[in-house]
């Protein structure tokens, strides 16, 4: 299989990588760039734990080919904080204990960021709907929803 050269930005840093066309963005993030915050789970787009921001929109990185991100900008959970300071969403997750095993947390944090960027004051229903692509296998949704609503409330 012929490798393709792709150039992209991840968490603000430009990278040039050669990849085979059958590799996913998830593989690129975890196995080449060694960013392990993005989790590999169902690998068929059902659970959403591999969610990252691609040009500002959340995508399930198991359903994106690495070659597709040529020229794009990617943000993973590692790229959210600035100068070692956690983001308000990350802090709220800690305050609300919005995690049990923690495996789905990076994906919920990513989706929470996206939601509040496009809709700074969501209703509870809008938060629930925005989160419907990420599965918490411990079923601890309530504190996750409350953490996101709390950030919106404090910003007002």
């Amino acid at each position, binding site marked *: *299989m*012929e490798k*393709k050269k792709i150039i992209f930005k991840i968490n603000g840093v430009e990278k040039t990588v050669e990849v*085979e*066309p*059958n*590799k*996913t963005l998830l593989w690129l993030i975890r196995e080449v760039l060694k960013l392990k915050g993005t989790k590999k789970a169902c*690998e*068929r*787009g059902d659970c*959403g734990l591999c*969610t990252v921001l*691609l040009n500002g*929109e*959340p*995508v*399930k990185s*198991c*359903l*994106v*080919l690495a*070659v*597709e991100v*040529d020229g794009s900008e990617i943000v993973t959970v590692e790229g959210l904080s600035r100068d070692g300071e956690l983001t308000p969403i990350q802090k709220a997750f800690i305050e609300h204990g919005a995690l049990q095993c923690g495996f789905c947390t990076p994906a919920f944090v990513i*989706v929470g960021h996206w939601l509040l960027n496009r809709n700074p004051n969501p209703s509870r229903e809008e938060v*629930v*709907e*925005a*989160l*419907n*692509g*990420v599965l918490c296998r411990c079923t601890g949704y309530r504190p996750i929803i409350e953490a996101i609503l709390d950030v919106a409330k404090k910003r007002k």
Partner: protein
Amino acid sequence: MLPKIEYSCPQTLEELFEILEKYKEQAKVLAGGTDLLVSLRDRIEKARHIVDIKKIKELEKLEYREGEGLVIGATVTLRKILESRVVKERYPVLWEAVRTIGDMILKNRATLVGNICNASPAADSAPALLILEAKVRILSREGFREVPIENFFTGVKKTILKPWEIVKEVFVPEPPRNHFGRYLKMMRVMSEDLSVVGVAGLGYREGGDVKIRLAYSSVAPTPLRIREAEEAFLKPGTIEEKIERAVQIAAEKVSPISDVRGSAEYRLHLVKVLTRRLLKQIVEVV
């Protein structure tokens, strides 16, 4: 792990058709990839060459013209459709159906044209497009053809599309004036899932009569419009009689199967319940 594939990302339709003609059935078109990559991984679909159409400008169109209709290009995502005010206001049944496809993350990648090309019996956009009498605009190097969506699906995961053709866009004509349309979808869980049964319906007044249209997902090998039920509704009788007649005919025309999402018997029951519920809503509004 995905099988070995080649990948190309043409910038023009000309380049795209060159690739499709070269590889024919060994080429698969990639837009959102939310169905294709899963099928490749599961070895349900085989492909040697993946051709990504997202860089082709002619396929990005989402455009409404008053008095004519709506054009939805091959690479228009469900997110764009959901965010379109004109779709929400002029084509509420389509908007409601699109809202139920996949989840909020998949909508950033998945496309409406992909939803129909995948040709699942459960394709949620299909019943809405059927009752809106959409046309599928197909393009190849040989030329252009426009096919009513009712003739597009030929079986489970099968369409009339030839390997060297693509769906350039879907055209949705102006719906009947003052129509009321809805998509009712029964799922196993509250948040997001494939349908157990889906029903799209719309109603409008013409002369003194209320006319209806009905189409279904997950009740037959293809998404299905049931014109016999629509016609039965027009025959004389009280509103209750009309509704019951349409419900009975719809139940006779579907051929549901049993699978992980529900039994054939349950689906048949849902066809009756959802059709009745939808028709009652329609006659209340129009």
